[in-house]
């Protein structure tokens, strides 16, 4: 059970948050112009790596804000949290 440092609220228990999967997957601006394969890449393909991963999290039982997190899935160490729209930090 992590302690997550919400960029808007500060440190809170993990039970207040929900994870939204891989971060920095941008919804294509012109979906109709994509091939099936290109659309499928956006729609279905997600990494689930052992190691440093960029993830979306939502403070669902708090401020309800979405934000990004850099987490090492092998030891659950959280390297950084940052707001949506901000550049990902270099880890």
């Amino acid at each position: 059970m992590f302690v997550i440092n919400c960029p808007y609220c500060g440190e809170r228990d993990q039970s207040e948050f929900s994870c939204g999967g891989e971060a920095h997957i941008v919804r294509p601006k012109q979906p109709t112009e994509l091939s099936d394969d290109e659309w499928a890449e956006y729609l279905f393909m997600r990494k689930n790596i052992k190691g440093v991963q960029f993830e979306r999290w939502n403070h669902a039982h708090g401020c309800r804000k979405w934000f990004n997190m850099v987490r090492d899935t092998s030891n659950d160490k959280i390297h950084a949290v940052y707001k949506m729209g901000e550049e990902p930090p270099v880890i």
Partner: protein
Amino acid sequence: MTKYRINKTRFVDQTKTVSFTFDGKKYHGFEGDTLASALLSNGIHLIGRSFKYHRPRGIMSCGSEEPNAICQINDNTDLTEPNVRATEIELYEGLKASSQNCWPSLNFDIGGINNFISPFIPAGFYYKTFMWPKSFWKKIYEPLIRLSAGLGKSPTQPDPDIYDHKHEHCDVLVIGGGISGIISAKIAAKNNLKTILIEDKNILGGSTIYQNNKNFIIDNQKSNEWLMNEISELEKLDNLIIKTRTSLAAFHSYNYLLAKENISDHLPLDKKNSSIRQRLWKIRADKVIVAAGAIERPLIFNNNDRPGIILANSVKKYLDFYGVSTGLNNIIFTNNDSAYETAVSLFEKGISVKIVDIRKKSSSNIVKNAEDLGIKIYWNSTVVNTFGYKKIKSIEIMNLSEDGSNVTGNKHKIQCDCLSISGGWTPMVHMHTQSGGKLDFREIDQVFVPTEKCENHINVGSCNGDFELEEIVKNTNYKVKKFLNINEGGFDKISVLCSKESEKKNIWLLPNTISESKTKSFIDFQNDSTAKDIKLALREGFKSIEHVKRYTTTGMATDQGKLSNMHALGIIADTAGVKMGTLGTTTFRPPFTPLTFGAIVGRSVGKFFDIVRKTSIHEWHVQNNAKFENVGQWKRPWYYPINNENLHEAVQRESKAARDSAGILDASTLGKIDIQGSDASEFLNRVYTNAWSKLGIGKCRYGLMLNEDGMVYDDGVTTRLGENHYLMTTTTGGAANVLSKLEDYLQTEWPELDVYLTSVTDHYSTASICGPNSKKILNKLFPNKDFSDEAFPHMSYQDAIIDKIECRIMRISFTGELSYEINVESKYGKSLWENCIAAGEEYKITPYGTETMHLLRAEKGFIIVGQDTDGTMTPIDLQMDWIVSKKKYDFIGKRSLYRSDTMREDRKQLVGLLTDDPNEILEEGAQIVSELDKKPVEMIGHVTSSYFSPNLNKSIALAVVKGGKKMNGQKLFVPMENKNINVTVSDFIFFDKENKRINA
């Protein structure tokens, strides 16, 4: 005093007698005893039978590692508790315990025959044998296994006890109240850190508290006396919380720990009832100091499982702590010095003792102490066999060969009534590894010790691999100071004298003269796996420790292999000829000791299991005999039976009334989201499949929402309240998820949109009135309002006042009837409802529930998301092409509607089904086939909704069928258990296809 209670100690109050029963017979112990020490004081060793071979087994240890002495507590079958370790349960007046896994009785056990046929039940026996013939499994093998297997009986009634959860935060959590835990807690608390010390026993002190040997001296006092002074000083510290009877269950990441406190388990029966039984502490600690101690290892030799074979340090604890002798003629069998402390203690109490040591010599102080006392020591020797069925009677020993791989010379038989064994010590690294810590293998004494690379916890004392008193005290002081960044710990000038071990030797599987196949050298006592099982697994090709563990079931019993895992690893390493450190260990998973389900769920039982949401009209429904249905967390009226009506009868009546005159439904539970902002219209355009820009103010529109994969996600009517203001409704169950999804898109994909979302589901109550007389009822309720089709057309909304209360009226319909939904602030919901009922009385307005609502909309072919859809249906599959905008450039899920898979023509599509026999009602979920004779039977779809329609006087059903769009009129079959039902595919709008009634 009984024959075996030979010593008076400060830990057991021999003036306070406690009576208890074991297997129906009454015994006495004293306050301070455990069930195990009380049984031993009565000379009882035989406690149970082993799992597979049903061999007699006795008490083997004094703690949570106990594999054998597991009991059933309480003889009341309603409330009985199985698998309780006799070594852990504190004796209380009225305790009733019995042995498990023996039938018909402990002393005569039929399963014991397994012991004699055991050459035929090796590892993997069940996997191999019971596979064939297949039909034998269900009828013969499984019932037989179930009869003879099992560990105790489950209670038959709900648990009457109260369990509690509590959150706690602290600067420092110390796990374990032995000497290193006490030193750690004192350093932390004295330096103004909020500290919690937890200890699973009822008193602090660990094994040092009964260490009265003169070779162990701290500051010129015997170590036990020094520690007692420390404990009394500790209890005076303000910012230290000491929790005894509290065991750590789990050590999760970020120093989040679960600990279980026993609050009333030790109390006499008459005092238990009023109290909470157990409390689960959820602790978030800034720093954690693990001082969990070590567990003594057994030795692995032939017939090492007889009652009376006990771990050496446990023998010492029974003697010096409980005052109980485990035997009067004791033999110690050891590979290390620590067992000599037991020998000296026994000798000093006048008990006959001899020592068998696999080492050639040892020159430490404690060994010299034993030699000086004249205790006979057999060096370089090993036990090769033991005798005595229900209690050990004698042993045979032999000399070891030069390299220890074999035995030489003659067998020598020695009589005894207790064999104390010690194979060294295993640090309790469970906590460390649970939290993500790694381990190193230490060759010299063959132990896994924690690596130092942890930020927020440390391990001190014997769980860190420090076994000698001096290094325990000094290293703990040093490590804790460094960890907490403290200069002065208060233990810097301490002087410690202790015996130091210099000769070490370990043999995982001791050699024997007889062939391995004829020996029983137990590794996992509870699961009856032996050294030969492990070797068999290796011969059969299992290499990974995790596979060997599962194949042989070693380490998989309720004791989680606390005694067995290291030996299993050692034997695998020896047999495979690899270094033990390279094998790794099995994973140590929480809980460290079994947790009761009660402790896990705490107070979340019965009505506290989940939140119950009720509408403001709920009380009226109850008074009017409604039966309720759970929809998400909501209680919704399901139907309102009159007199003795059943569901079917009530629904037929309600459905007819709604179409013939007027019906009223509590629609308050529908999800409601208030949407405001200058981009609200654009936002709706992007989340719904249809167009929203041109919806006039005061108008309503039905919308369908997809997931990005093109599948229908939710639906509902949205009303434009103002230029930049909408009220969206969602399905009852989908409200929270829809809000989350909309927020997600707004925050992450379209942050440029000026839109604000507010959940207002609970803010409004809704009475929905439908039927040909609904307009007349509305006229009575709102006499000043014009309800003509021109002034108030279908799919529009108006504000109104009723009883000085503002309300919104939406003219929308989910039944196909002329229909109005009146919304008021929730607190006025019941009064609105009662007004509606009163106004409708002359039209026999009939309250109806969800079942009738479902029937009415099915007659009209309106889908229910989640019933007629299941996350694999596109709007095209639902034949709802009309709602998918061709003009809009994009909306959520649009692109997916043009994927090759979603455009397949043989996808399951929504159709109507009519049974050839109009009185036959299909079962929802029933499967549909087109050819009855085809093998294997091909399922081409299933029934999603099915009712008997009183308005059509025939049964109707909605279904999804592969390629169903083009199958109108085709005959299909619904095979049921006893018959095949003939059905015909039809249009799914069964009633009022022309939509005349909406404006009737």
